[in-house]
Each structure stands twice: as structure tokens, then as C-alpha cells.
């Protein structure tokens, strides 16, 4: 699959934090999955598309100093494991804050940002990052 078709395919859930909920066990997943890893065949036909609230809390975080060229302008930046209120844990950047204000357990909410640009003439990928409440 090309990069462009990946971006296009992921647009819906990256823009709006859309995942799946297994209506067999109640677990929610992000990114979306076709089958629940706990319930396997039991979950077939019971996976429901859900839009997460975008609220969550920081489980852990790290400051990135060594980044690829696409992210160099933002260095140093904070990368965190965010546990969404609905359960799934996702990796995302924490933006617009003083690094001293970031702590484990801090409440965060989703922000819409540029994720990556393919040079100056390529496509721009947008998606979720997080901000402190």
C-alpha cells in the first residue's frame, strides 16, 4: 500500500479518534480492529464503530530530543501514552505546554494538528495530538 492510500484510509479515524467497540466483551480499540483480540470469532458482527470523546489522561511520557527531519522543528517535544476515557491507550504528542506542567495522571484533551508533511510539494497529513486540560 502506498503512503498516500494509507493516509487517505486513516483520515477518518485520525481526524476524529474513531475506533471500534466489541459488543461481546465491552472493550474499545484504537486504531480500529475488525476482530476483538480477546473474543476472536465471538466478536464477529459485534464490532461497533465509536467516536471517542478525545478526553484522557497521561499514563507516561518522554521528551524527544532526537527526531527525524520531519519533526525537527518541534524538538524537543513530548510524546505520551494517553489512556482515553473509553479505555484504549494511544501514543501521541502533547503540545502547547510547559514541560514542567506535564505529569503522569494529568488530564488531556484532543487537539487537531498537522502530523507530517511530505516536503513542500507533497500531501499534508493531519490528525490528533493532545493538550493539557
Amino acid at each position, binding site marked *: 500500500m502506498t503512503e498516500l492510500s494509507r493516509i487517505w484510509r486513516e483520515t477518518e479515524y485520525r481526524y476524529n479518534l474513531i475506533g471500534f467497540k466489541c459488543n461481546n466483551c465491552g472493550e474499545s480499540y484504537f486504531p480500529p480492529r475488525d476482530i476483538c483480540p480477546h473474543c476472536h470469532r465471538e466478536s464477529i458482527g459485534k464490532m461497533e464503530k465509536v467516536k471517542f470523546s478525545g478526553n484522557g489522561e497521561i499514563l507516561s511520557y518522554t521528551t524527544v530530543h532526537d527526531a527525524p527531519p520531519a519533526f525537527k522543528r518541534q524538538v524537543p517535544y513530548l510524546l505520551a501514552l494517553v489512556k482515553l476515557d473509553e479505555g484504549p491507550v494511544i501514543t501521541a504528542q502533547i503540545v502547547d505546554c510547559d514541560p514542567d506542567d506535564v505529569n503522569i495522571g494529568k488530564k488531556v484533551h484532543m487537539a487537531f494538528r498537522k502530523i507530517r508533511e511530505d516536503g513542500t510539494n507533497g500531501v499534508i497529513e*493531519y490528525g490528533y495530538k493532545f493538550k493539557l486540560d
Partner: protein
Amino acid sequence: MLNVNFYICISAKPFMSGIVSYGSYIPYYRIKPEEIARIWGDEPERMKKNLFILSKSVPSPDEDVASISVEAARNALKRMDVNPEEIGAIYVGSESHPYAVKPTATIVAAAIGMPLEYFAADYEFACKAGTAGMQNVKAMVDSNFIKYGFAIGSDTSQGAPGDALEYTASAGGTAMLIGKNNTIAEINDTLSVSTDTPDFWRREGEPYPKHGERFTGEPGYFKHVIAASKAMMERMDTKSSDYDYVVFHQPNGKFPSRAAKILGFTEDQYKTGLLTPYIGNTYSGSMMTGLSAVLDESKPEDRILAVSFGSGAGSDAFDITVTGEMKDYKRDNAPTVKKLIEKVKFIDYGMYTKFRKIIVTGDSVE
């Protein structure tokens, strides 16, 4: 007024459409005029005084007109529970759209969950592209083409390094959701004035705008803002004292207060909507964000005159009355303009050049 080709577009008679919800977004970073003056050898006190500017907003490297517009539109939707499937149009006005070809409007529509069938386009008319969108959406609502529509004005404009514009060109945006149901503010009427004036322009492919120095003030800004304001007051049979608030396009802190005085408005009427001293000139977001700050504080029955200006040149005037719905409106579900101005981080000129991509980099930076 001057004896030139001067077109006043007559809008339809007042209907019951107006602002159903609104939301703004201003980036977190700021730079002070002292810091810009330090680099270019200007006298900081003179620049601050001449432009009446204390700081301007700077977008972070991962922000652009699309991300700012999405945040503004989402803030509007936090305050009013409108089903995105009922939003039939979206117009984004800007002079710094991320793509030359590929609409910002569809990115925003996708990010707020609008379905397949909606009207969309990006608008450009210097700093009044967002308010032109408001007029268009209002007309579509009034003619029952759509139930609700979004008009967004947003920019991440740049002034050429060393140019006076660098002190004010900033980033921010505001989204107005327009409809007929549950309006918090009726748009009683709107009109536009337009002329062909070379006051400010940017050619295709050029990174920075140019301005016809002697055209920016009198034949540009003041002529159009004042003509549109007067035409609106004539049409509505109002005088300056009939309005509780007035808000103008604000390329700097000076022009709007001068226009206000010429038209007989007092500081009490214009100070709430005057944001440029704190955030700079957000171009297409400028008047609309000023209006957002006014709506943040207004109460039922308040009357507002709002007039934008776009170089090239023209002005859009809006006569607005806040309705009783404002009492139940969930204003605090999204940050007010005051809140957006509160928590900021000041950066130096070096950081500013990195953020705004105005330093030449090698392979280690994309």
C-alpha cells in the same frame, strides 16, 4: 465620499437568520515587538506606539489554516449541539490556505464529521474572505438551500522579515455557524462595498505580500470601512449611539480606533472587540475574532455593528442584535477569546524563524 466607481451591493431584506454558534482559536505562542525590533534595529517604543501592538500570535510548526479552522469550528460545535449532518455548507476564507490547489473546507468538514452532501469552497478576498463567507452562508440559509452553514475566517499570515508588517501579521481564526433556528444573534442585515484598489497584494508563488505604502490608510482601509459603516447605518436608520458594540477589521491597534472615532463611536463601544494589541492581525480571522470576543460578553438585546476590510479592496458590514437565546447558550463549553489570550508562551526571534520556516535548512530538517 470619493467620486470613483463605487459599488454597493444591496442585500436581500432582513430574514430571521443569524449566528447559531461561534468559536475561535488562537495559537499558544507569542512574540513581542521589542524582540522583532531588536533584530531589525527599529526603535521598539516607536513601533509599539505607531502600531499599538504589544504582542502577536505565532503558529507552532504543526499548525496551519486547516488546523486552526478545525479547532475554531469544533469550539463552535461544543457550544451548540448541532448534528453535523444538518450543516449544508462550509466556506473557509483565508489568504494562507495550506494548499494552492486542494480545499481547506473539505479538511475541516471531514474533521467535524460533515457527511457527503454539502456545499464547500475556499474563499480569498485578503482579510475579508471569512466575512464574505458569512454573507454567502446567510443568503443560502435565508433562501432555504441549507439549514445550517459554517463560515470560517482564519490565517497564518507572514510579513516579510524586516517589513513593518512583520510586527503584526499573526495567526488565528473564528468559525460562525449560521442558521435560522435558535440564533443567539440575529444578523439584521449585511452589505458590502468594493473597489479596485492596489493597497496590498501578493502575487501567486510569492512568499510575502507587498503594500502600496500610501494606499493602505486613506484610500484602502478608511475609505471602505467608513463607507460600509455609514451605508449600513443609513439603511438601518441608526446612529453610532444605537450600538452597544462596534468591531472593525484591525490590521493594527490604531486604525480601528481611528475609524471608530471618525464614525462617532466611543472607546467603550470598540474596546471589547479590539484584540490586535494582544494577538496581532489575524487577517481573515481579525474582525470575526473581534466579534467573537464581543459575543463572549454580550447579553440579549445588545446591538453590534461589525465591519471587515479586505485589501484590493472592500468592506462587509453586519448589523447584529443579540437574542434571548444567549441566556441559555453554553458559552463556557469552549474557551472564550479572553481565555485564549490568557495562557501564552513568548518566544524569541530565533525560535520564530524556525517555527515560521524563514531560515534555510539542510537535510537534517524537512
